[in-house]
C-alpha cells in the first residue's frame, strides 16, 4: 500500500509524519497548482463545489507518482462533503486508476465500516505502533499551526515586506526532504526561531480581521487566493476560526477545555442559527460574534461558490454585522486564478476599516 491524501493547507506536514512513524509508505500530493485545478475540473461534475475538484486533482497527481490508496475523512451531514469520497473513487476508477479509497466516517454513523477501514489503513500494525505514532504526530499538528500563527503575526508587522514569506517558503521546501516526526519537529523549531528574528516596525498597531467560513477554503491558501498573505502584506493581523489543530483537538484529541470553549462560542450563535445545517455554517456565525466580542475590526467570510451551508450563513451575517457593529464582507472563490477583483475588495475593505477606526478612536481592544 502506498498511501496518499488530499491537501488542506499545511495538514500534509503532520499527516506525513504520522504515517511515516507508522511505517506506511506515503506520497503527499504535489502542492496545489494550476495543473491540479485543471485536472480536477476536467474530470469533476461541473456544478460540484471547488474543494471536490482540487481533491480530485490531488489524487491524480499522487497516483501518477505511485500512490494506490487514498485516505479521506467522511461526513454524513447534509453538506455535499459527505459524497466526496464515494463519488471521487467512482470517477478515478472510470478513468482507469485502480485505487482503494478509505473513507473515515464519524464513528456514530457506521462503526464496523470505520473499524474495517482503520484496520486496512493500519496494515496490521499493532496498537502500540499506532498509539506511538499518534503521540509523536499530535504535537506536530500544534507546532505547525503555531509556526503559521507566528508568521501571521510577523507578516503584519515586518519591517521589510516579504521577510516572513521568504522564511515560510524555505521551510516548506525543506519539509519535502525530511522524513519522520523527529526530523519535522526539529525543522519546525529551527524555523520558528528564524521567524522570531524577523525585525518588526516599531510602535505599529495593525488592524485585526477575523476570517470565518468553509473549512477547506479557509485553510488551503491556493483556493482562497492567499487571503492571509494578502491581508498580512497590507499590514493586517489575521486570525481564522478554522485551523487544522483546532479540528484535530475538537474532533480527535480529548482536549476538554477547548471543547468547552467551543461549546460556549457556539451557544452565542444560537439566536441567529439554532441548529446544525451541515458544513460549518454555525461556526461561521458563532465565531463572527466571537470576533466582534474580542474587539476585532472586521470579518471576512470565505467560501467556495455555491457552498450551501455558507450561503445560508451569508444571508444571516448582515444581521450580525448590524447588531454587533462590525463590518463583514463575503469572499466567494471558484476556479478563478486572476485575483484582481479580490485584491480590490480586500484593499477597499482595509481602507474602510482604517477610516472607521480613525473616526472612533479609543475603542477597547482585546489582545490575544
Amino acid at each position, binding site marked *: 500500500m502506498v498511501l496518499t491524501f488530499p491537501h488542506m493547507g499545511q495538514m500534509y506536514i503532520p499527516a506525513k509524519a504520522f504515517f511515516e512513524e507508522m511505517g506506511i509508505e506515503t506520497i503527499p500530493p*504535489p*502542492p496545489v*497548482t*494550476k*495543473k491540479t485545478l485543471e485536472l480536477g475540473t476536467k474530470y469533476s461534475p461541473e456544478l460540484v463545489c471547488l474543494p471536490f475538484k482540487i481533491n480530485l486533482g490531488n489524487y491524480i497527481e499522487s497516483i501518477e507518482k505511485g500512490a494506490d490508496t487514498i485516505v479521506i475523512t467522511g461526513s454524513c451531514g447534509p453538506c455535499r462533503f459527505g459524497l466526496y469520497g464515494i463519488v471521487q473513487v467512482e470517477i478515478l476508477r472510470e478513468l482507469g486508476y485502480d485505487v482503494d479509497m478509505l473513507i473515515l466516517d464519524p464513528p456514530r454513523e457506521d462503526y464496523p465500516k470505520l473499524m474495517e477501514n482503520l484496520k486496512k489503513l493500519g496494515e496490521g500494525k499493532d496498537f502500540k505502533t499506532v498509539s506511538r505514532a499518534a503521540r509523536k504526530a499530535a504535537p506536530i499538528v500544534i507546532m505547525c499551526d503555531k509556526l503559521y500563527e507566528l508568521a501571521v503575526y510577523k507578516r503584519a508587522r515586518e519591517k521589510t*515586506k*516579504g521577510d516572513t*514569506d*521568504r522564511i515560510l*517558503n524555505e521551510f516548506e*521546501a525543506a519539509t519535502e526532504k525530511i522524513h519522520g516526526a523527529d526530523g519535522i519537529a526539529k525543522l519546525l523549531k529551527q524555523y520558528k526561531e528564524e521567524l522570531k528574528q524577523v525585525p518588526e516596525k516599531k510602535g505599529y498597531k495593525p488592524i485585526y480581521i477575523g476570517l470565518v467560513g468553509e473549512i477547506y477554503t479557509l485553510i488551503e491558501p491556493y483556493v482562497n487566493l*492567499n487571503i492571509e*498573505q494578502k491581508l498580512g502584506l497590507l499590514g493586517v493581523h489575521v486570525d481564522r476560526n478554522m485551523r487544522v489543530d483546532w479540528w484535530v483537538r475538537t474532533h480527535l484529541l480529548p482536549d476538554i477545555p477547548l471543547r468547552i470553549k467551543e461549546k460556549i462560542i457556539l451557544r452565542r450563535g444560537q439566536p441567529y442559527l439554532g441548529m446544525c445545517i451541515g458544513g460549518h455554517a454555525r461556526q461561521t456565525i458563532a465565531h463572527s460574534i466571537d470576533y466582534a466580542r474580542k474587539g476585532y475590526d472586521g470579518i471576512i467570510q470565505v467560501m467556495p461558490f455555491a457552498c450551501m451551508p455558507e450561503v445560508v450563513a451569508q*444571508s444571516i451575517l*448582515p444581521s450580525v454585522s448590524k447588531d454587533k457593529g462590525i*463590518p463583514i464582507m463575503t469572499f*466567494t472563490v471558484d476556479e478563478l486564478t486572476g485575483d*484582481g*477583483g479580490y*485584491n*480590490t*475588495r480586500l*484593499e*477597499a*475593505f482595509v*481602507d*474602510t476599516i482604517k*477610516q*472607521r477606526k480613525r*473616526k472612533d478612536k479609543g475603542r477597547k481592544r482585546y489582545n490575544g
Partner: protein
Amino acid sequence: MGECELYLGIDVGSVSTNIIVMDKNLNVLEKNYIRTQGRPIQILKESLMELSSNLPLRSTIAGVGCTGSGRELAGAIVGADVVKNEITAHGMAAITFLPDTSTVIEIGGQDSKMIIIRNGIITDFAMNTVCAAGTGSFLDRQASRLNIPISEFGELAEASKAPVRIAGRCAVFAESDMVHKQQMGYEVEDIVKGLCIALVRNYLNNVGKGKEILPRVVFQGGVAANRGIKNAFEDMLGTEITVPEHYDVMGALGAAILAREETKKSKITKFRGFERLKDDFISTSFECNGCPNMCEIVEIKIGNQIVARWGDRCGKWAEAQ
C-alpha cells in the same frame, strides 16, 4: 502668480479608460473618456499625449493618482503618487463633491458597486464582478441587438407606458426572456423599460443585499447617463437620485483628489513627465519555474530599465527590480 498646479487622475477600467485633469480647487479642466480596447498601455499613452497638448501654458502636474482594474499597470507607466482601488476612489469623489452623500450607486462596464457612506466616511461596500446581468456591457449588448444606439436607450425607456417583465437574475435568462417577448410582439420601448427595471432589481437584490440605502443617493459610472435606469432606481427606492456633473469620470476624479492629499504630505510628485511617455514601453510575461505554482510574471520595461513586475506569489520577482 506662479505656475498653475494640476492634478491628473487616471481610471483604467476593463472597458474604458478615463483621464481627468483638475486644478487644486477641484475644477475639472480636461476630461477624456476612451475605450480601453484591450490595449491599456497604448491607449493610455496616446490619450495622455493628446491631453498634454491641451493643457494651459505655465502649468505643471503636481500629482498623479491611478485607479481601476488596470491601476497597477497605469501607475507603473506614468509614475503615480497614489494607486488606489476603485471603491475608495469613487467614494472619495462622492464625499468631496456632495458631502451629504449616504449611498453611492456605481455601475460601470464590467462591474457594479454600492458604497455606503455615513458622516463622510465609507463604512461599507459591495461589489459585483462575477455577474454580467448588472453591468453596462450587458446593456450595451442588448442595445446593439435591438439596433438602438445606447445613447437613446434611456429616452426610449421613458416613452414606455406598460413595461414588460424581464427576468433579471442572469444575463442568459434576461436575453432569452427578451427575445421571447419581442417575438410575441411587445413594443420595443416596453421591452427596453422592462430591461432597465430588471437590471435595477437585480442590482438591488444582488449588490444591495442587506444594505441600508439612505438618501442622498448618488448615481455614478457610465450607466448613470441612462435615464431609464435612473428612473427605475427612483421608482424602486422611492427617493431622488443625484447624478453628479462628472458622473462618468468620478473614479478618475477620486484618484486625482487622493493624489492631491498624498502630494500635500510628500511635497513632490513621482510623475515621470509627458516627455518620458514617448519612450517605448515593453510589457512581457513569462512563467516562473521556481516552484510548482508556475506564477505568470508580468514585466514592464522602458528601454532596458525594468519599471515594474508583478504576478508572483512569493514576491521574489517584485522585489528584484
